[in-house]
């Protein structure tokens, strides 16, 4: 077997797919940071919860009828949207004037609450996730990329571009930026801060749901806390590495994080340095924050 394949190609491809998942979650994180200077710790769990309700609808569990896959996916997406709006109304809005770190701690509370609710509803056992695509996109002697894996990369690319356009080209997008920079002035010109905030969180929830459904699709199962466990911290790292102020940053950051992890895991044996992926990532994050705090693609402020 070609040694190159093992040491280079495999980490690159695995890293690309894994990194795209981080990027998808990171996109929602960047959106919320860009609009409200908030790190949302519940982002991944919104995804888990949405993937879970999609699975309920797919399998006809509890109050859900046994729906076909597209409708089940819709249920999942609506859950994400609803969660985003609910969190905004119940937790974020009352804390408008509070310190940002307080809001961050509150989102960590939301994370725990969602894990608990998911646990009550679904139980601790892993549940089969909704299977969107069944086939293999690419199979060679040394690599296998499933259709779901390929889909994740495509969806991330499309969403990253779309959201970048949204913020630069649409009225609503620019309004969100305006609110984040000058809430009072924005109010004066007739833009509702409340509505903008709700809109942002709704979109973030939707993005979380998309990430959750796709990621649980690649893993095959979903259980309370699964996405938080798998992807939350790498997604944060991706967002910060790429630059929390730039939406395509999440894309770049995610892919970089995925590849770094995969390279380290493949090439540094566990008995030499356990958790090598995490160590390399920590160092990378530290260096970026110390040297270029705005991230790879972010603007210095």
């Amino acid at each position, binding site marked *: 077997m070609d040694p190159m394949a093992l040491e280079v190609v495999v980490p690159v491809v695995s890293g690309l797919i894994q990194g795209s998942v981080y990027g998808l979650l990171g996109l929602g994180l960047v959106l919320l940071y860009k609009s409200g*200077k908030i*790190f949302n710790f519940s982002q991944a769990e919104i995804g888990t919860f949405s993937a879970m309700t999609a699975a*309920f609808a797919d399998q006809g*569990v*509890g*109050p859900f009828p046994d729906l076909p896959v597209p409708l089940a996916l819709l249920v999942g997406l609506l859950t994400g949207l609803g969660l985003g709006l609910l969190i905004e109304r*119940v*937790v974020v809005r*009352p*804390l408008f004037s*509070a*310190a*940002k*770190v*307080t809001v*961050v*701690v*509150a989102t*960590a*509370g*939301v*994370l*725990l*609450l969602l*894990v*608990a*609710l998911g*646990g*009550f*509803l*679904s*139980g*601790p*056992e892993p*549940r089969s996730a909704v299977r969107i695509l069944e086939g293999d996109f690419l199979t060679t002697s040394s690599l296998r990329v499933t259709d779901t894996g390929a889909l994740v990369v495509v969806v991330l690319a499309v969403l990253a571009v779309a959201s970048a356009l949204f913020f630069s080209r649409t009225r609503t997008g620019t309004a969100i930026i305006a609110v984040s920079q000058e809430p009072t002035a924005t109010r004066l010109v007739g833009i509702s801060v409340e509505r903008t905030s709700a809109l942002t969180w709704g979109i973030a929830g939707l993005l979380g749901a998309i990430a959750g459904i796709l990621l649980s699709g690649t893993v095959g199962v979903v259980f*309370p806390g699964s996405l938080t466990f798998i992807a939350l*911290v790498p997604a*944060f*790292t991706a967002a*910060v590495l790429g630059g929390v102020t730039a939406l395509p940053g999440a894309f770049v950051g995610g892919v970089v994080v995925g590849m770094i992890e995969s390279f380290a895991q493949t090439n540094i044996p566990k*008995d030499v*340095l*356990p*958790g*090598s*992926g*995490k*160590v390399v*990532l*920590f160092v990378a*994050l*530290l260096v970026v*924050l*110390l040297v270029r*705090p705005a991230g790879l693609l972010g603007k210095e402020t």
Partner: protein
Amino acid sequence: MTAVDARATTPAEPAPAHKQGRDFGPIRWLPRILVLAVVAYIFLWRIPQDEGGAAAIAADACIYAIVGISLNILIGHTGQLSLGHNGFFGIGAFAAAYSLTVREVPFALTFVIAGVVGALFALVMGLVALRITGLYLALITLVFALTLEESLFEVEWLTNAGAGQPADRPEWLIADSNFFYFCLAFLVVAVYIDYRLLKTKTGRALLALKENERVAEAFGINVTAFKLIAFVISGTLAGVAGALLAYRIGLVTASGLGFNLALTFVLMTVVGGLGSRIGVILGASLFASLSFILEETWMHEVQQFLVGLLSFGSTSAEANLTQYAVGFLGALGLLLTIVQFPGGLGQQLRAFFDWTWGKPFDVHALLHPQDDGPGAVEGSSVRA
């Protein structure tokens, strides 16, 4: 508990109301002494009787409370959000277990080692905190702890990887009741350190740092030094608490020291009430014993009933869902605290504590805890 309540007499605090309420005759003191006696009886005598049960949980509560005080120094006093306290705690636990079991260091010395190692790691984080602030600092502490968990805590010579590093207690501490008193002694020391810290110039400097670093600097406060001091003291306490945990369980593994623990630490401190020493201790005790309360007491029936209502998609028996009930209540407590009662438990129960300390019972403070009276808990919300 006198050390805990010592803040009431702290001259640094404007507390005229306390002084007014001081001149009682013995009749007014009697009910207070009775209440304190009952509390002391329950906590110092009744609970330790339940060997292996409540006594062990009480030891946990003391350990968590030390972590709470440690975390409070950073978040409550200095305004640095650390999401990586499980890292300092864990490294202390491993350092103690390793030095005792592998290096055969005397028992007492393992606490010194745990404290020093915890302080060193915290110092590193403190250096990082000089450059990186606010949310980014929170993130970097989180990733730092996660890296420790997956890397250092899996290094075989130190931790036996998944198998865990044993830490057997010496003979005289085998009984859980003895171990509880042992932990309690550490807690008293931690409270005293925290109390002294706030009373001194350092404490005032830290509070100034928290309000506004630049202003503090302009007033001639050495931001660098005081930030590092706060990190080092906090890391030492967390490391020692980690050592206590190692002996409490008898085995340290990485899996018990994850992100969840970091969140629990932050949660209990915020729910307890940032800046309020007794609030933090209460919050920590509550979180340490929550699963015990929900599983082993009459609360179990209540919890089972509620869980039963919700668990439509689960094939598990309700008993398996207890762990989620703990998270649910913890998270709910946190959100309520942040959104509705930013002062936390410390402020909620303030009227009661003040009463036991000689002040008239302030019903108003109990019903409207958001009205910050004189001497209200400082630092009632986290600031970036």
